[in-house]
């Protein structure tokens, strides 16, 4: 025994010596990018963010409101100079020098032609353009600055330099220059922009970037404040550090308390010290070998050092279970015997843990791979600590009166209890599929509340805020990189709400330079034209000609050096970078909301742009995706291997299942609970869950090992498990008190994991072992199998009952040709993306058209359906209700299909026969398609309300400017973003049918707004009546039937009378040829034709025979229809309408009487909810369509004849109209919706932020008041309620609610 002890002692000393030496060599880095992968898209995106400084610009504001402008300028200069002196830390932009303008002019002098936008140059060189330019110069001469312009005129007669300088120095929104300083419009606050050289990721409160900045700010005579990523990073570091310290301290105290409570002694706790020390040293040694290693890896690695503690606890409790001898040698003998007895469990446990970590070691994330190696070091250390130091520690610490704590945990658990728990875990496992893996840095926002408030204030003042992204392209040369960037910038700049900061105005691609040089190559002709025009305008051409000639020669390509002494040098430096492989150039996209950026990203993807798009959120999401994928694949492999070990060890299925069940409970119980509570898993808590998995494996293995060794051993194992879990819980539970979301999230995830490990270890595993002993397992397997098969069969029967069989259609082999991501062709049939919408033309027999649409749509079909599914899940959050609807509604759809025109069914059948079906699990594609087309009617029938509201009018003859017959309407259909962002203008030329164009989405065969070649235009607007609902043809198919067949309003009436449908509807109809308009009120009972005369407006209520129906009256008094109709009547009453005015009215945001309403008020015609707006000129056969977002994007006119001729581009007839207002409104709605599931305090904050985006919105004001009352701040609720009532509220029910709430405040 002595020799055995000596050998252990020597081995232990050697181990400590070697690992200590190695550990001392560990080098630690703090830059988080060192922990991230460098390969793949994620690596590139991360590199982009670093290179182009997307993350590290700091804004300093100097407050001069209490001082003179001179004092403010002086303070800016002083601070700017002091910060500039720290050139190793900052690049500072605080002043534009007085010679900057002249420098800029001088820099661009030789490249004026090269720098001019080609389209602008072409305009300028045309006779008209030249004349306009010279007349502008003459107009300038007439002003007081004439002398200055006169001098310039001789050198640059077309003022190219002036135009370019204007563009290059165009002030940013909210910022102007005052004596060369960046100030606000009032001139009483200034800003300094600082680009930090130190990487953001590694910043702490003690980083020089922070300390030097704060020291310099403190010296400034005027008040200063600053925001920026360095500050956020430092705050996150400080918060995490502080809260982790608190959690560790409280965890240690809890562990001590737990040991005292269970053992009435701290001796067992002392035995954990060798385990902790050796675990730390071996983990440290592994870290040293991998050095340099990131601090975050060490932090997690430190937690792994506790693995040995579990082993010690098992050794100790198993050692004392049969009594402890009096003497040291005897205790050594007992310890060694116990160790040998437990060796099997230790072996499997270490193998399982090491296998798990070995799988993670293959991760592409340096941090995860390093952590895995550190974990393996810690596991080996844990094992060695118990083998080498365990017996000595036991002999030294165990005493004869030590007893295994008697815990009220039964060894035998009835099978039915285990089954119930297993089923519950199974339900959570299903729910775990919905767990959100959140990698967005804002979800892990560690900013202090005052910093967040400051950021919002400063960004709002200085025109920043919103979201940003980068477009990056690379090339072997700068020219190559710029050429790749140019098309992407063009697309992004055209995307509503997105502004682009890019270097292409200063470093134009060579293609532009060459094209411009070519455009001015015919000097003689241009000079002739110039002489003629300048003489005509009144200039002496002989004096201006030399300047013009000189201008034509300014075709030199500028380089980054060209701009070095100009105010734009900072921009050029920031957006161009030399890389190892050549050059990278970037454009920065700014948008008011994430939605706008996502749209831009979508348009970029459709344009086939070669530039790489990366946004901070995407960087994090990409990272999160990778971690999630790695965790899934590696964990899967690890579990498979561990199961193999267990199979070798236990030989039978039930013990293996019993051993693994704590892990199953831990993983699925935790993920399912997170999904249920809406708590995301983060890149930090994901790996933390791996720690729990290791812990859970151990407990399962020890329990199964102990099962065959009698009651006392099982009890000892249970006690050891209780201690191990308590130990881990005490270590992590403290994190749940943290304010930092990441730290808190780790605490929650690990605590849940430990709880479910305990559930598995103390309920399911014993139940399985008991059941095995009682031979009941096969019986239960049979029962469970029967139940499972029964459920599956019931589901399939429901699916079959709801399945609608498609009619037989021909089989087609033709395939669409993809010309670009945004352009596909199949014969003469086309699908193209223009102006942010799809434009499609299809023709042929019904099944042929169906096949063509399916082929042209390609991936768009899947995107549309996936997005509609998202909306379905959002509207119906309960999965059981969703399941019920998915299985139940098609049964109704089946009844509907029998009343649909067989031609339309054939089209749908052929369409759904194309391609793979990702949603087949729900029902067949054809069944879903039928249901989609009946969605509007079924929805209206079920909830008795149109999904949204619509406003429109018909007008013609003397009521329109040109006597044309117009139909204008907004389609306020709340069916999700697909109907807006992916809206399609579709020309349908059905075999033997009238060609027509309508607006919908690709794959939607019915119509809601359209016009046919015979001049019949229609628009559907939902209504309500008391007429009983009856299954019938979906209204959108009736509309299609009209467009395909009607040549007069009598035809329209006849088709409506024949079909009717099963809900009530108001149908606007115009006959452009006969000059007639009507509104048809359609109910399941009757059709009423209301002649419109030369103008009539319509919203969502009826005014014919059903005007006094209860539902109609209720809609009038409680909805927004009356407000919208009144306003439209007022506008329409003005007469003289044309396309432009109609668009203006559809965009109108006022209430009746011109009452100013807040943005997004649903009492207005334009409430930022319309999926599309159209102005149809039935006389000219044109349709003007709004492009995303809602009605704020461009309006584009399409002519039916142009589309028939394959001219798909359309013509812009109305420019974008402040899309940022609409986008902010969307964001505000999302925030208010999300606030519904928040605690009152958080909800109030969220709604307050929403009100900053949508000031004065009455529904939000009422929501805020409710949150304030719920939060116990009733007094503050009065003001928003009174404001909402005065606004007024959107609906009568809102007004009544506000009054009721006010009443409760009295």
């Amino acid at each position, binding site marked *: 025994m002595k020799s055995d002890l000596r050998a252990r002692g020597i081995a232990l000393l050697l181990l400590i010596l070697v690992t200590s030496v190695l550990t001392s060599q560990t080098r630690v880095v703090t830059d988080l990018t060192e922990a991230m992968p460098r390969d793949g898209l994620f690596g590139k995106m991360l590199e982009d963010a670093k290179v182009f400084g997307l993350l590290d610009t700091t804004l300093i504001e100097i407050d001069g409101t209490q001082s003179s402008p001179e004092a403010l300028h002086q303070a800016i200069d002083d601070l700017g100079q002091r910060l500039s002196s720290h050139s190793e830390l900052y690049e500072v932009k605080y002043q534009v020098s007085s010679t900057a303008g002249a420098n800029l002019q001088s820099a661009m002098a030789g490249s004026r032609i090269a720098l001019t936008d080609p389209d602008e140059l072409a305009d300028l060189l045309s006779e008209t353009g030249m004349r306009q330019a010279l007349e502008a110069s003459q107009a300038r001469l*007439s002003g007081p600055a004439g*002398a*200055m312009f006169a001098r310039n005129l001789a050198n640059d007669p077309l003022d190219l330099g002036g135009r370019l300088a204007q563009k290059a120095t165009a002030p940013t929104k909210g910022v102007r220059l005052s004596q060369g300083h960046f100030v606000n419009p009032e001139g009483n606050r200034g800003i300094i922009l600082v680009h930090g050289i130190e990487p953001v990721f590694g910043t702490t409160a003690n980083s020089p970037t922070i300390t030097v900045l704060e020291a310099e700010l403190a010296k400034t005579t005027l008040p200063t404040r600053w925001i920026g990523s360095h500050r956020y990073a430092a705050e996150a570091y400080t918060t995490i550090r502080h809260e982790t310290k608190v959690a560790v301290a409280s965890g240690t105290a809890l562990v001590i308390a737990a040991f005292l409570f269970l053992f009435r002694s701290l001796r067992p706790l002392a035995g954990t010290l060798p385990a902790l020390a050796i675990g730390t040293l071996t983990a440290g040694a592994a870290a040293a070998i991998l050095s340099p290693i990131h601090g975050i890896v060490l932090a997690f690695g430190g937690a792994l050092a506790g693995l040995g503690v579990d082993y010690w606890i098992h050794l100790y409790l198993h050692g004392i279970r049969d009594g402890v001898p009096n003497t040291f040698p005897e205790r050594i003998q007992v310890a060694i015997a116990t160790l040998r007895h437990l060796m099997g469990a230790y072996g499997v446990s270490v193998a399982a843990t090491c296998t798990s970590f070995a799988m993670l070691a293959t991760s592409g994330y340096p941090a995860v791979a390093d952590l895995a190696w550190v974990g393996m070091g810690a596991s080996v250390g844990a094992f060695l600590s118990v083998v080498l130091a365990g017996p000595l520690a036991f002999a030294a610490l165990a005493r004869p009166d030590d007893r295994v704590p008697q815990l009220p945990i039964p060894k035998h658990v009835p099978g039915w209890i285990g089954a119930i728990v297993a089923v519950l875990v199974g339900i959570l496992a299903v729910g775990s599929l919905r767990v959100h893996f959140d990698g967005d840095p804002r979800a892990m926002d560690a900013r202090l509340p005052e910093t967040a408030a400051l950021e919002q204030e400063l960004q709002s003042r200085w025109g920043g805020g919103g979201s940003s992204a980068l477009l990056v392209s690379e090339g072997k040369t700068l020219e190559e990189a710029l050429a790749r960037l140019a098309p992407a910038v063009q697309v992004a700049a055209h995307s509503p709400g997105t502004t682009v900061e890019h270097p292409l105005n200063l470093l134009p691609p060579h293609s532009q330079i060459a094209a411009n040089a070519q455009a001015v190559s015919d000097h003689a002709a241009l000079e002739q034209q110039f002489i003629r025009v300048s003489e005509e305008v009144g200039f002496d051409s002989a004096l201006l000609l030399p300047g013009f000639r000189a201008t034509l020669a300014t075709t030199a390509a500028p380089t980054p050096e060209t701009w070095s002494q100009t105010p734009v040098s900072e921009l050029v430096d920031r957006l161009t970078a030399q890389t190892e492989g050549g050059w990278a150039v970037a454009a920065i996209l700014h948008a008011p909301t994430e939605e706008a950026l996502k749209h831009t990203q979508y348009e970029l993807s459709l344009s086939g742009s070669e530039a790489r798009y990366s946004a901070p959120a995407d960087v994090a999401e990409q990272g999160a995706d990778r971690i999630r994928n790695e965790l899934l694949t590696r964990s899967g492999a690890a579990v498979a291997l561990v199961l193999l070990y267990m199979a070798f060890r236990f030989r039978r299925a039930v013990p293996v299942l019993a051993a693994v069940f704590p892990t199953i409970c831990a993983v699925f119980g935790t993920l399912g609970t997170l999904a249920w509570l809406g708590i995301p898993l983060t890149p930090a808590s994901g790996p933390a869950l791996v720690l729990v998995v290791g812990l859970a494996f151990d407990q399962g293995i020890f329990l199964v090992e102990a099962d065959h060794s009698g009651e006392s051993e099982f009890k000892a194992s249970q006690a050891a498990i209780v201690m191990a879990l308590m130990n881990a819980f005490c270590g992590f539970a403290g994190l749940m008190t943290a304010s930092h979301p990441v730290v808190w999230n780790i605490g929650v995830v690990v605590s849940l994991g430990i709880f479910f490990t305990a559930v598995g270890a103390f309920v399911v595993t014993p139940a399985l072992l008991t059941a095995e002993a009682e031979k009941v397992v096969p019986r239960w397997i049979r029962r469970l199998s029967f139940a499972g098969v029964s459920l599956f069969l019931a589901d399939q029967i429901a699916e079959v009952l709801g399945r609608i069989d498609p009619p037989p259609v021909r089989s087609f082999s033709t395939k669409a040709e993809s010309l670009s991501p945004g352009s596909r062709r199949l014969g003469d049939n086309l699908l193209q993306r223009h102006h942010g919408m799809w434009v499609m033309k299809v023709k042929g027999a019904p099944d042929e058209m169906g096949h063509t649409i399916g082929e042209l749509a390609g991936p768009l079909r899947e995107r549309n359906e996936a997005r509609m599914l998202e909306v379905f899940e959002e509207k119906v959050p309960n999965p059981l209700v969703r399941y019920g609807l998915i299985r139940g509604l098609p049964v109704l759809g089946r009844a509907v299909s029998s009343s649909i025109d067989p031609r339309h069914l054939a089209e749908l059948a052929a369409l759904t026969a194309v391609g793979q079906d990702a949603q087949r699990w729900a029902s067949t594609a054809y069944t879903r398609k039928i249901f989609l087309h009946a969605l509007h009617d079924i929805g209206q029938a079920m909830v008795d309300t149109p999904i949204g509201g619509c406003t429109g009018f018909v007008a013609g003859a003397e009521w329109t400017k040109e006597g044309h017959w117009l139909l204008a309407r907004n389609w306020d259909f709340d069916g999700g973003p697909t109907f807006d962002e992916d809206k399609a203008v579709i020309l349908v030329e059905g075999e033997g049918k009238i060609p027509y164009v309508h607006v919908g989405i690709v794959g939607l065969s019915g119509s809601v707004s359209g016009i046919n070649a015979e001049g019949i235009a229609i628009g559907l607007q939902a209504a309500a009546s008391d007429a009983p609902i009856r299954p019938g043809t979906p209204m959108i198919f009736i509309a299609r039937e009209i467009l395909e067949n009607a040549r007069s309003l009598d035809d329209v009436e006849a088709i409506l009378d024949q079909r009717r449908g099963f809900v009530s509807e108001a149908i606007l109809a115009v006959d452009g040829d006969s000059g007639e308009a009507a509104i048809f009120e359609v109910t399941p009972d009757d059709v009423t034709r209301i002649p419109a005369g030369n103008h009539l407006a319509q919203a969502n209520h009826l005014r014919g025979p059903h005007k006094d129906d209860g539902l109609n009256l209720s809609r009038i008094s409680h909805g927004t229809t009356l407000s919208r109709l009144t306003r439209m009547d007022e506008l329409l009453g003005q007469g003289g309408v044309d396309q432009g005015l109609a668009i203006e009215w559809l965009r109108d945001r006022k209430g009746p009487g011109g009452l100013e309403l807040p943005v997004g008020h649903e009492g207005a015609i334009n409430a930022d909810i319309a999926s599309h707006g159209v102005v149809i000129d039935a006389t000219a056969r044109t349709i003007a369509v709004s492009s995303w977002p809602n009605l704020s994007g461009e309006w584009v006119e399409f002519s039916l004849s142009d589309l028939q001729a394959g001219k798909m581009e359309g013509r812009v007839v109305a420019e974008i109209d402040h899309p940022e207002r609409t986008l902010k409104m969307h964001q505000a709605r999302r925030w208010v919706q999300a606030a519904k599931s928040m605690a009152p305090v958080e909800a109030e904050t969220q709604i307050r932020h929403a009100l900053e985006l949508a000031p004065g919105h009455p529904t939000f004001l009422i929501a805020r008041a409710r949150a304030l009352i719920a939060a116990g701040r009733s007094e503050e609720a009065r003001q928003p309620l009174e404001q909402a009532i005065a606004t007024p509220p959107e609906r009568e029910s809102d007004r009544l609610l506000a009054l009721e709430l006010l009443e409760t405040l009295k």
Partner: protein
Amino acid sequence: MYAGNAFGAAPDAAVWAELAKTHHLSAEFTQTQKRAILKKPLVSSGTIEFERPENLVWTVKLPAPSTFELHGSVASMEFPQLGLKERFDLDSMPDANRLASSLLVWLQADPAAVERDFTVHYLDAPARIVLTPKSPSLQGLIKKMELHVKESPWRISGVNLEEPSGDTVDLAFHRVILDGKPIPDAP
């Protein structure tokens, strides 16, 4: 009160103090430019409005409408027919700044600024003042500026500006309103 020197004599520097009494000035103007680059004189007309210390709105109505505004160091120009609107900081545009100084010098009538930037000659009655720029940079824009001053009350009735190139700009003011009080045009 300064009433000029003896009848018929040239004024002196004290005239600036009289001119400076006006806080708000508005007038119509006719401007005639004779420039080598123009085939014939360019005649423009419009209104001018000045308010101390340095707010100036110069509106050209004919031949093409335009507005020039100066508020402190921020200047803006708008040409509605051309759809042009420009705004710039004079401190970063030396030429424009110098030009604005030369405009404001006679509107503000600040004797210290006048003395600092110009050599002044006071000529015949009731008053004709010739300003010659001192700094070479301003000399690059203006060779000399001749101000025509009228009395009762004291005001600038016209400006003749000569540029180094020989081009000239003649400004004549009428329908002058000083601090809300219309001043009849002299016959």
